[in-house]
């Protein structure tokens, strides 16, 4: 696009950019920072769990009075760890970074449909993140009512909670604008020939995810408005009559319902789980098809499963609320829907396993991460079934079992898919390939230590250890047999932190290394159209020198009769003439 080669100022090009690729990178860097920060909070908390009330070495005296993480701060760190990881880390990286960067390239669009909104979406995320961080310097610290912010506790909590709610409104705005943009881009800007059933599964996963974000986030916004009113205007939407706090009756009109918040919150937060996992599945589909050199097993079934997952995720929210006394009818309904929603998840996972069968698998770093995703997500999913049924959920509720379950879905699940995606698309973004040896070191250590953290949680949870105790439960007799696992888990967590160093070093080293020869625009020999682009990456302002047309499905690997092992989507089909 030579007419666009005019000089743009630095600020317009890299800071207030409207180019989806730059915005994608901005999202990626900021969310990686937040992921690291959220992990850092957890590493401090794990010291407190392993060695309760001992001075934290090195950083303790710098950060806290007495050098100890107090129970109040532990609560606050726990709430912020959850909030940061979900709303500031994983969602922005899977939708904001991957979605923004790759969707227009995979569908052959020149940019997102609304470039200005895209920019606003990023900066709204930035402000939301900043506002959330501001809570840490307030008296009483950041929000400390858990990432779920259950009232009445959150209604009466310190000022950090108000800041949390305001930050949340910005983050909701950001996701809303971003996801609308992705839907319009996919529906309106697909190139000639790219019908829905020829879309790469990554694009499908982004489409479903975006619908979830558009429709599920607003009820949380409604709840946030109500809670803000409770905190600032003195209403009592979530405060029941006769509530006693600190030995005195709380002076409000009363008549509200704390359960109302839980309904509104989980109406968002359950689809949110699928927002975290669907794009990860999309990334894994791309990488597995590419590295087994086989088409994805039963593409259409996968697509319908994705859509069905998205649809059903709106009807399972109250399985988080079996202990609220909402009645047997409600419990029965949500148990049934929860069992139904596990079916398409299993279909997708099985589809990916079947795809491996008989493939000539290339074990490069992205593939290792993608392969690890399968059993890790499998463990996360299967351990979720007992939580979806009220009789087994009630004893497990609020124990470490729950923590183990959802971390298996999100941490070794989604985070591994994110790593896989970064290793896979790094050559597309920068024109340079990450070092394989460092990548494999990163993978194996991450894999071992992730399991070292989360596997013992199931045992602790089955023993009944509560997830909310700042000392891990030293004073409880039923925790006595499993509490010593905490030390092992904490050391695993710190080692996992160290295991990220090869990744960071790898990225920096690769970026500063001079490019010697002309890079291969398609290093993985992939078929989807973001790789068929002829310009050498990193890409300039335009996306395609010549806009490709699409003639075939996304995963035509090892097609009999074709001259090459892989057939790009943009290759004309000689058999069907006049097309």
């Amino acid at each position, binding site marked *: 696009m030579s007419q666009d080669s005019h000089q743009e100022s630095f600020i317009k090009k890299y800071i207030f950019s409207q180019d989806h690729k730059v915005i994608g990178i901005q999202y990626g860097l900021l969310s990686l920072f937040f992921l690291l920060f959220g992990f850092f909070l957890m590493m401090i908390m794990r010291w407190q769990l392993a060695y309760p009330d001992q001075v934290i070495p090195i950083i303790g005296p710098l950060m806290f009075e007495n050098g100890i993480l107090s129970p109040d701060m532990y609560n606050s760190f726990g709430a912020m760890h959850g909030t940061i990881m979900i709303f500031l880390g994983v969602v922005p990286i899977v939708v904001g970074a991957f979605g923004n960067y790759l969707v227009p390239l995979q569908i052959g669009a020149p940019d997102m449909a609304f470039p200005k909104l895209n920019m606003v979406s990023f900066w709204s995320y930035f402000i939301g993140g900043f506002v959330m961080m501001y809570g840490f310097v307030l008296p009483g610290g950041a929000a400390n009512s858990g990432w779920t912010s259950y009232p009445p506790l959150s209604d009466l909590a310190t000022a950090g909670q108000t800041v949390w709610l305001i930050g949340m409104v910005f983050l909701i705005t950001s996701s809303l604008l971003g996801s609308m943009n992705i839907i319009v881009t996919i529906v309106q800007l697909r190139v000639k020939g790219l019908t829905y059933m020829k879309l790469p599964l990554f694009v499908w996963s982004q489409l479903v995810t975006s619908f979830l974000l558009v429709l599920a986030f607003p009820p949380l916004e409604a709840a946030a408005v109500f809670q803000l*009113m409770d905190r600032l205007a003195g209403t009592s939407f979530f405060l029941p009559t006769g509530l006693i706090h600190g030995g005195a009756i709380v002076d409000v*009109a009363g008549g509200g319902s704390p359960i*109302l918040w839980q309904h509104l919150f989980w109406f968002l937060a359950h689809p949110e789980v699928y927002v975290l996992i669907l794009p990860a599945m999309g990334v894994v589909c791309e990488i597995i098809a590419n590295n087994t050199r086989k088409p994805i097993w039963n593409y259409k079934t996968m697509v319908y499963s994705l859509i069905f997952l998205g649809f059903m995720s709106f009807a399972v929210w109250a399985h988080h609320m079996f202990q609220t006394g909402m009645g047997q009818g409600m419990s029965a309904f949500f148990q049934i829907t929860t069992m139904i929603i596990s079916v398409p998840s299993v279909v997708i996972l099985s589809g990916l396993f079947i795809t491996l069968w008989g493939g000539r698998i290339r074990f490069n770093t992205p593939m290792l991460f993608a392969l690890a995703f399968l059993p890790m997500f499998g463990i996360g999913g299967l351990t979720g079934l007992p939580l979806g049924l009220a009789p087994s959920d009630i004893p497990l509720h609020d124990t470490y079992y729950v923590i183990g379950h959802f971390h298996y879905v999100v941490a070794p699940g989604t985070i591994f898919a994110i790593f896989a995606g970064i290793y896979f698309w790094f050559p597309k973004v920068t024109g340079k390939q990450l070092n394989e040896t460092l990548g494999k070191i990163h993978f194996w250590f991450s894999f071992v230590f992730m399991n070292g953290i989360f596997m013992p949680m199931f045992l602790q949870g089955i023993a009944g250890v509560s997830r909310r105790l700042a000392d891990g439960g030293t004073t409880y007799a039923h925790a006595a047999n499993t509490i010593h696992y905490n030390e092992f888990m904490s050391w695993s967590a710190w080692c996992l932190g160290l295991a990220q160093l090869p990744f960071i070093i790898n990225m920096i080293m690769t970026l500063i290394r001079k490019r010697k020869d002309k890079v291969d625009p398609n290093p993985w020999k992939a078929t989807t159209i973001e790789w068929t682009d002829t310009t050498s990456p990193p890409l300039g302002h335009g996306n395609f020198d010549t806009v490709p047309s699409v003639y075939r499905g996304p995963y035509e690997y090892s097609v009999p009769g074709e001259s090459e092992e892989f057939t790009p989507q943009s290759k004309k089909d000689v058999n069907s003439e006049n097309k």
Partner: protein
Amino acid sequence: MQIPYNEKLRPDTGLYNAKLGIWLFLASEIMLFGGLFSAYVLLRSSNADFMMHQHYLNVPLATLNTIILITSSVTMVMAWVSLKLNDLKKYKLYMLLTLLCSVGFLIVKFFEYSAKFEHHLYPSTDNFLGTYFTLTGLHGLHIIGGMVVMIYLVGPGVKMWETNKERFTNRVEVIGLYWHFVDLVWIFLFPALYLL
């Protein structure tokens, strides 16, 4: 760089980009107000005294406001039709009328609110008034948001008419869709809070 289908309709969907965008935005707004309304239903059904303060609400003023808003929806359509008929002057007239209606709506709202405050009825008084102030307040914010866009489209934004007629008309259609939605929310709020 040109984004396709900014003005023209994409043949297989029959839409231009912004129209699909605004429909998605309105879908999310329906979920927002849906959440608010269901909270209202839940709070009301779980408390026998919930409607205790309803008689303080001023039904004649709210009826007047309903009429004002419906009128503004009509003038909004007329503004868009005028553009379709290539008549910029009439467009400006109708757009200003719409703005006038929305200012009128806010003035009536102001009198309603201050009458409540004079009787010492605040959001904290009970949950009915809390719901009333929260829902009508959020609706009022939507009115103000719409007014900001309208002021832009009748003021500095009108320059686009000279360079890109089609796109400007689309913009007016999009804000029109939004405005009808805000109108519709009021049509639900009015009976839910004042009458039933």
